[in-house]
C-alpha cells in the first residue's frame, strides 16, 4: 500500500511534469507567433535602429547593416537563429534603453512586481471579505451597497479610474505625487521606503478598486449558494451563530476557489498595470511594453512577450494546481480510490 503522502507527492510531480511539457509547447508556439507578427510589421528594423539619421546614410551602408544582422536571409533561417539565441538565454539588446533586454526586463519587473503584488493581495483580501459579507447578509442594505459598488466598477476601465483618482487626490487635494515611482531629483540610495510607498499608493489603489469588484462578485455568488445549502440549514437548526457559520462553513468552502480564481486573474492585473503605469508615468514593465510597442523596439517587445507569457502561465498553472490538489473533495476521491 502506498502511503497517502507519497501518493500526493507523486501526483504533484506528475502535475509538474505535465505543466513543464505544456509550458515548453506553449513557449514554442508563442515564440513562433510573435516572430511572424513582428516580421510582418511595417517597421523597417534598419531604419528603426538608426533613428533620425536614417536619411543621411546611403543604400550600400543599409545593405551592409542588413547583411551584418542577417536580414537578407530567408525568414525561416532567421527564426532558427533567433530561437537558438533565446534558448541560450540571450534576448538581445533593447534599442530604446541601449542595454540587454534581460536586464531591462529584470529592473522594470521588480518595480511592477511590487505594484502588482500589493494590488493583488489587497484586492484579494478586501474583495473576499466584501463578497462574504454581501453573500451572508444577502438582501440587506450592506449587501445592496456592495452590489452597487461591484455593478459599477466591475466593468469600468481601469485607466479611467486611475485618471479620476489622480485628479481628485493628486491635483485637487495634493495628497499624493502626480507621477513616477520615486521623488524626482533624489539619488537612488537616499529614497526611503515611505517615499516609495507614497508613490505606489494611487497606482495600487486604482488597480485594486477594479479587481476587488471581480473577486467580490465571484465570492458573493459562491457564498449565496453555500448559505442556501442543507448543511447551513442544519447548522442553523443546531443553533450556531451567524459568525460561527461564516467561520466554520462559509470561509472553508469559498476560500480555495476564490484563491484559485485570483491566481488566474494575473492576466487582468498585468493588463491593468500596463494602463495604470501609463497614467502615473510609473517606470515598470508595463510602461516599457508600451514604449517598446510605440517606438518599435522589437527585441524588447519580443523579450517582454516571452517573459510575461511565462509569468501568466505560472499563474494559470497555480490556479489549476489549487483546483486539483488542494480541494478536499479531490483528496477524498484519492482515498476512496486506494481502497
Amino acid at each position, binding site marked *: 500500500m502506498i502511503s497517502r503522502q507519497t501518493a500526493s507527492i507523486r501526483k504533484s510531480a506528475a502535475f509538474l511534469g505535465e505543466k513543464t511539457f505544456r509550458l515548453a509547447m506553449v513557449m514554442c508556439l*508563442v515564440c513562433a507567433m510573435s516572430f511572424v507578427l513582428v516580421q510582418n510589421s*511595417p517597421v523597417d528594423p534598419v531604419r528603426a535602429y538608426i533613428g533620425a539619421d536614417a536619411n543621411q546614410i546611403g543604400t550600400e551602408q543599409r545593405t551592409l547593416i542588413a547583411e551584418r544582422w542577417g536580414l537578407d536571409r530567408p525568414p525561416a533561417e532567421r527564426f532558427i537563429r533567433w530561437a537558438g539565441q533565446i534558448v541560450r538565454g540571450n534576448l538581445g539588446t533593447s534599442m530604446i534603453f541601449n542595454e540587454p533586454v534581460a536586464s531591462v526586463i529584470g529592473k522594470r519587473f521588480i518595480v511592477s512586481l511590487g505594484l502588482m503584488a500589493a494590488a493583488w493581495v489587497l484586492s484579494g483580501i478586501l474583495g473576499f471579505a466584501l463578497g462574504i459579507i454581501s453573500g451572508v447578509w444577502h438582501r440587506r442594505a450592506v449587501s445592496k451597497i456592495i452590489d452597487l459598488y461591484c455593478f459599477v466598477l466591475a466593468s469600468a*476601465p481601469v485607466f479611467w*479610474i486611475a*485618471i479620476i483618482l489622480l485628479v481628485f487626490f493628486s491635483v485637487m487635494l495634493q495628497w499624493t505625487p502626480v507621477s513616477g515611482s520615486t521623488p524626482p531629483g533624489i539619488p537612488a540610495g537616499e529614497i526611503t521606503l515611505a517615499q516609495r510607498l507614497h508613490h505606489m499608493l494611487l497606482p495600487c489603489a486604482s488597480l485594486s478598486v477594479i479587481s476587488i469588484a471581480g473577486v467580490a462578485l465571484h465570492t458573493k455568488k459562491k457564498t449565496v449558494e453555500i448559505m442556501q445549502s442543507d448543511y447551513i440549514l442544519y447548522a442553523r437548526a443546531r443553533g450556531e451563530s451567524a459568525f460561527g457559520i461564516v467561520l466554520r462553513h462559509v470561509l472553508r468552502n469559498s476560500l480555495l476557489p476564490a484563491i484559485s480564481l485570483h491566481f488566474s486573474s494575473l492576466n487582468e492585473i498585468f493588463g491593468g498595470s500596463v494602463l495604470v503605469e501609463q497614467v502615473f508615468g510609473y517606470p515598470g514593465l508595463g510602461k516599457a*511594453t508600451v514604449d517598446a510597442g510605440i517606438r518599435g523596439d522589437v527585441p524588447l*517587445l519580443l523579450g517582454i512577450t516571452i517573459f510575461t507569457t511565462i509569468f501568466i502561465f505560472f499563474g494559470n498553472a497555480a490556479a489549476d494546481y489549487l483546483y486539483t490538489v488542494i480541494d478536499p473533495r479531490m483528496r477524498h476521491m484519492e482515498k476512496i480510490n486506494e481502497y
Partner: protein
Amino acid sequence: MNIRLVSLPNPRQKSAASITACLILLCSLFILNAMIDETGLGTDLGRRYLAPGHGSILGTDWLGRDMFTRITKGLCMSFHIGIMSAIGSSLIAVIMGLAAAVFGKKVDAIVALLIDAFLSVPHIVLLILVSFTLGGGFKGIVIAVCVSHWSRLARIIRAEILQLKGSDYIMMSYRLGRSRRWIMAHHMLPHVSSQFLIGLILMFPHAILHAAGLSFLGFGMTPDRPCIGVLLSESMRHISTGYWWLALFPGAALVALVKIFDVIGENASRMLNPRTKQE
C-alpha cells in the same frame, strides 16, 4: 382577504423588460448620434475650456470642440469596434471549438494548445503586438481584439462539445449511420448556439474596454475621429490644470455603454439557460 388584481411580473418578464430597456437606451444613442451634426467636432478657439453647463452641456476642450458631440461620436465609434471584434472573436471561438470536437484527436490537441497559448500571453501584450504589426487604425484594433479574445469562449465551447460527444443521442445518431458533419450541423451547432449568443454579448464589454485601453495607450485611432480611449488620453494632458470634465464624462459614458451590454448579456443568459429559464 388579500387578492392581487395585477400579478407581479415573473423573473422571465423582468429579464425581458430590462433587455428592452437596454435596447431602447442603445437606440437612443444612435438617434442622438444621427441628430448631432459634425460642427461640434470642429475647433472654435473662442469657446475654449467652457465648463459643463456654461453654453455647452458637457463643456468644451482646449480647442473649443464640444465634448458632448465628441463623446456621442466616440461612443458610436467604440460601439462599432466592440461589435465587430466581438462577432469576429466569437466566430473564431466557435470554429475552433467545433473543429476540436469534430475532426478527431490531432486537431483537438492542436486547438487545445492554441487555446493554452492564447490564454497565457497577456491580452494587453498580444494587443500591442498585433496592432504593432498592423500599424494601428480601426482595422488594427478590431483584428487585435479578435485575435486575443477568442480563447476563453473556445475553451467553454470545446468542453461543452466534448461532453456532448459522449451523450447517448449523439452515439445513437452515429450508430444510425449519420456522418460526423451531419451530427455537427444538426445536433452540436444547435446545442452550442445559445452558448455562442451569450458568449458574443458578454464578449462585447471586454472587447470595448480593451479597444479603449489600446487606443488610450496610443495605438490606433487618430484624434480627428474621436473614440473614448483617445478622448481620455488627450484629457491626461489637461488634468493637472483642473479641467476635470474632459476626463470624467467620456469614461462615465463608456461605463454606461459597457453596463448596457452586461445587463443584456446577463438577462439573456438567464432566459436562454435551460436551468433558469423556467423560473
